[in-house]
């Protein structure tokens, strides 16, 4: 494997891990494990934890998928220049 490909893959893995940490924190940590704590705060008529579990997490997932598509395309461009493989 060329160094360029290695570096590309390492950057891709870092990107995925970073985004999955957010994915896990929002759905499991905020939406389930610490939901009672978050429920002490409010967002309009919603308890905050309930809102995260039934609305907020889904909006976060959307942002994560689009951010990944955008950053991964940037990585593709950066690492494929001058490399025909």
């Amino acid at each position, binding site marked *: 494997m060329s160094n360029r490909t290695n570096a590309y893959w390492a950057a891709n893995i870092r990107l995925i891990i970073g985004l999955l940490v957010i*994915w896990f924190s929002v759905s499991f940590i905020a*939406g389930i494990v610490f*939901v009672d704590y978050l429920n002490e705060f409010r967002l309009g*008529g919603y308890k905050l934890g309930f809102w995260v579990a039934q609305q907020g997490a*889904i*909006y976060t997932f959307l942002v994560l998928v689009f951010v*990944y598509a955008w950053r991964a395309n940037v990585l593709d461009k950066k690492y494929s220049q001058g490399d025909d493989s």
Partner: protein
Amino acid sequence: MSLSLLTYIVVGLSFAVYIGIALWARAGSTKEFYVAGGGVHPVANGMATAADWMSAASFISMAGLIGFSYQGYGGSVFLLGWTGGYVLLAMCIAPYLRRHGKFTVPEFIGDRFYSDAAKVVAVICLIIASITYVIGQMKGIGVAFGRFLEVDYEVGLSIGMVVVLFYAVLGGMKGITYTQIAQYVVLITAYTIPAIFISIQLTGNPVPQLGLGSTLVGENVYLLDKLDLILTDLGFAEYTTGPRLSTLNMTFYTMSLMIGTAGLPHVIIRFFTVPSVKDARISAGWALVFIAILYTTAPALAGMARLNLMTTIEPAPGQNLVYEERPQWFKNWESTKLLEFEDKNGDGRIQYNADPNTNEMVNIDNDILVLANPEIAKLPNWVIALVAAGGLAAALSTAAGLLLAISSAVSHDLLKGVVRPNISEKSELLASRLAMAGSVLLAGYLGFNPPDFAAGTVALAFGLAASSIFPALMLGIFYKRMNTQGAIAGMLAGIGVTLFYVFQHKGIMFIESTQFLGSMPANWFFGIEPNAFGAVGAIVNFTVAIVVCKFTAEPPQKIYDMIDELRSPNH
């Protein structure tokens, strides 16, 4: 115009559109049949994926599950699980499988683990997961026809089969893709319009997602606070906080649905239809946009409909509805047995509470919530007709996607891949059409004679995908050293453990009285229910695969080269 005539017209029009699309989008090659020629625009594919993904269960049952059985907050497992899986799919699965550039999921597993045996194991997992799933869709089609068009279940099912047979056999993935786009439009319109009306009626806010967090019309109290108050007064759990069994169970449940989503072949193959890896990534985002429209509306619908039902039965504390004065929709649904009342204290009024000894609403089927909602909210007849067409669109689109996954596994992976590798393109196309027709007939047969386990099947499909296919794909992409022996042992162990736990609780093949719990209490494994067990099966799969792999030979160099190719930059 009468309701049933209106429903015939709306459903008839939607079916005419699907058939018109089928005639226009005929498949001329195996590439068109399996992956729609690989030229589908990412936004179009996102929409088709959304329709493929959202089944009769999402459309008809989910809001009711959240509002009733899972008592509000507990229903978050479906919302988190069935959307969060797309994050995994978009980052960890779809782009690399698209890059590999083949037609099916078992084909990738066969190539990556350089083994026909691994491919056949994957085909078996795929067929079991997809067939169990498709039975539910066929039942949904029969029931929707029966309830809205007042035809027999069998007649309704036959009409549905003929329509699917027509466009799936003729057009393959190409026909299915374009019909799914039309079906998405029908189902999302049908789902959101009643929700918007109800949100306006209750809160004055036309956006249901905001309405659920607003105050009620004419009262200075938040909708959810009022709902919590009413429910706790009657002894129910608080709507906004009660977890499903336990925090640990909710965590595993959510995880099972997430990784099941990312491992279901009929969803993954949709990403083989776009032109490039870049398109596969962005297409997953679009799919999630279209799915999120329904999935963020569903909890609003659930909360509002629950409140509507509570205040219909008991407008003010102690002033229960007199049974003889019940509204027309109540009578309609009583005749279907999905709503049942029993006057236990003989006072002629309806008591609805959490105490099984005094509760008189002895049956409220989850499916009622979405189907009866337009009637409860007194919406015009055309909205009810639209909901019927929407339910059918949701069931048909998912059934078609599953049938394609099954038929391509048979004709491409088994026939061409293992039995007769030299088959010509023309014969393979014919074989895939025959396999599709066979799958439709099998699904129809199972719809006519649903096995006892039909109700438990969706959970099983997710459990199987989560515990077998998802780990195999993850290890294939992210762990170079993984070899044939590890992958096969992992898949068999994962599926085995999951099936064991499910059957132990619900009976072998869901046959009553064959539960073999012995002295074990229910949910004995850390209080995790069978529906949530796919995540445990996946952990077993990963562990077994890695241990076996350590003690067996490394994969050959060409596999390392193949993985390097998957992992190199795209341009």
